[in-house]
């Protein structure tokens, strides 16, 4: 499904070289990337989905080498294969929650499955907010809406960047549970990047990140 090998990355020629451990996640698998702030968690996530390109090593998604793609083809590949849940939920503010969910289908082509979107929002407990502006949602509701958006176009991998950092314990459990359930239902692999130790126990497949020194557990 997704595999990273010998990845090294440098923002600038002067900045330190970040080395990342090799990792792999199978279809419908779950992977937790654990690390403290500044260890390059987000960098790794961006490397995985091709927003950044490694100086060394290779990311392979569904048998496709990310480095072989560029330009609009890469944008499209990323859009199709990945659903991304950001640490802070961002939406197109001028559109309603439902319209925000329609964006992936609009960008990638294909008919927007309205009933599926409703079902998804229902599963996440925010069906009543479908026509509200994202601004009108609470932080927890926004996070759920962004989970719905990450899943609506049936990506093969869901990347979640600190999905729970802004949430309390109860919400954390709820959101991560929903994320796992929905990914399982959609048949998508789930990769969670976090420093949140509360999640540690939930995952057997986890990789701890430390800057500069590859380390797998």
């Amino acid at each position, binding site marked *: 499904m997704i595999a990273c090998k010998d990845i090294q990355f440098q923002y600038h020629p002067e900045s330190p070289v970040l080395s990342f451990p090799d990792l792999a996640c199978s279809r419908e698998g779950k992977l937790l990337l654990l690390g403290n702030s500044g260890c390059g968690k987000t960098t790794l996530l961006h490397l995985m*989905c091709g927003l950044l390109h490694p100086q060394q090593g290779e990311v392979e998604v569904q048998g496709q080498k990310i480095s072989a793609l560029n330009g*609009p083809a890469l944008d499209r590949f990323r859009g199709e294969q990945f659903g991304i849940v*950001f640490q802070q939920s961002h939406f197109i503010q001028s*559109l309603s929650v439902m319209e925000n969910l329609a*964006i992936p289908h609009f*960008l*990638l082509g294909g008919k927007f499955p309205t009933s599926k979107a409703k079902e998804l929002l229902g599963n996440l407990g925010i069906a009543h907010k479908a026509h509200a502006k994202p601004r009108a949602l609470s932080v927890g509701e926004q996070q759920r809406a962004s989970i719905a958006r990450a899943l609506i176009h049936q990506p093969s991998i869901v990347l979640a960047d600190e999905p729970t950092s802004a949430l309390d314990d109860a919400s954390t459990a709820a959101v991560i549970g929903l994320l796992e359930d929905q990914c399982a239902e959609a048949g998508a692999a789930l990769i969670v990047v976090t420093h949140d130790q509360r999640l540690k126990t939930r995952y057997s497949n986890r990789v701890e990140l430390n800057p500069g020194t590859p380390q797998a557990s």
Partner: protein
Amino acid sequence: MSWIYLAWRNLGLKKLQTTLSLILLAFGVGMVSLLMLSEKQLSDTFDRNIQDIDLVLGAKGSPLQLILANVYHVDAPTGNIRLVDAQKVIRHPYIEEGIPLAYGDNYRGFRIVGSTAAYLDHYNAALQAGRRIEAPFEVVIGRKVAETTGLKVGDTFFSAHGLQDETDVHTDKTFTVVGVLAESQSVIDQLLHCTIETIWAVHDGHGETVDESDREITAVLLKKRNPLAVLTIPNVIRDSNMQVALPAIEINRLTQNFGIGLNTLRSIAIIIMLISFASIFISVYDNLLARKYEIALLRTMGSGPSGVFLLLLLEGGLLSFGGAALGLVLSRVGLLVLAELVQDKFRYDWGSIGLLPNEWAIFGVAIFVGLIAAAIPGISALKIDISRTLSEK
């Protein structure tokens, strides 16, 4: 969902800014278009009324006044001339046709002009109702006169002495309306037309006889046969109380004087348009800065750079299209208001309000510049570092 819908919604999110840009552009385009329209209407009206009148013969005085009084019927005449003198000019070999005019009375502010049938033919006037004049004291009235006064075929009325007021009414002479003319968009819409003999009869003293050689008229509209007429005729009439004036030259002089004011207005309008483009630029650019994250978001969800660029172009395009369209509507509303205000004083119908070729040009330029104003922030949107933008908290 479509790019245009997204652009529309994004503009809607910033209602105040969007409204400001729209208003500025609408005013700029509206003013330029209003100036174009009124200039066009003015010169059309002037041209329609001049038609083939090459020269106007009348009493000495201001040549512009002579033209305004006898071609457009908006000024007082310069005086009277003797018919016998005028006929010498009309019969001159260089002159093809002369249409004599005699007037001095009005009905409710509309001039009663005595002339020959050639006068109506000159403006291709067609009868809408009734028939042509066959006898003295029969009149054919213009469309505007009929609408304003309510006169119709068969009605009778008294004329008032002078060209404006109705204090001195000739109650002993009754005019009969025998025909109503269809709208001609020219000055005869505003006139009541009768024979010259009728005008004489109204003003002849009671019972006294007037020597035919003393008959007077107000002016003659001349059409030349030979271009040399313009040079020759002034010589022919040098020793009389008459002068000839060229409508084309006098009207040119008049519009040139108007022109100074129009140019100032035009400059102001263009400055407003420039400000509006700056406002569109700021609007799109400001939106871009505020929505950098949204742009990055679109890119992660599968949009190529071209989609994002298109989105910003559409935002600028919608703004400039809306503003320019609003401006053209505004100019027409302005023209209608102006026409209402002007009609009573100037006595001209302003007619049609179709889109002039120049307005299409303004419309096109406005949209084009609006797109350019959006393309500049659009290019910086292409350069947004998605990864860094997403990492910024």
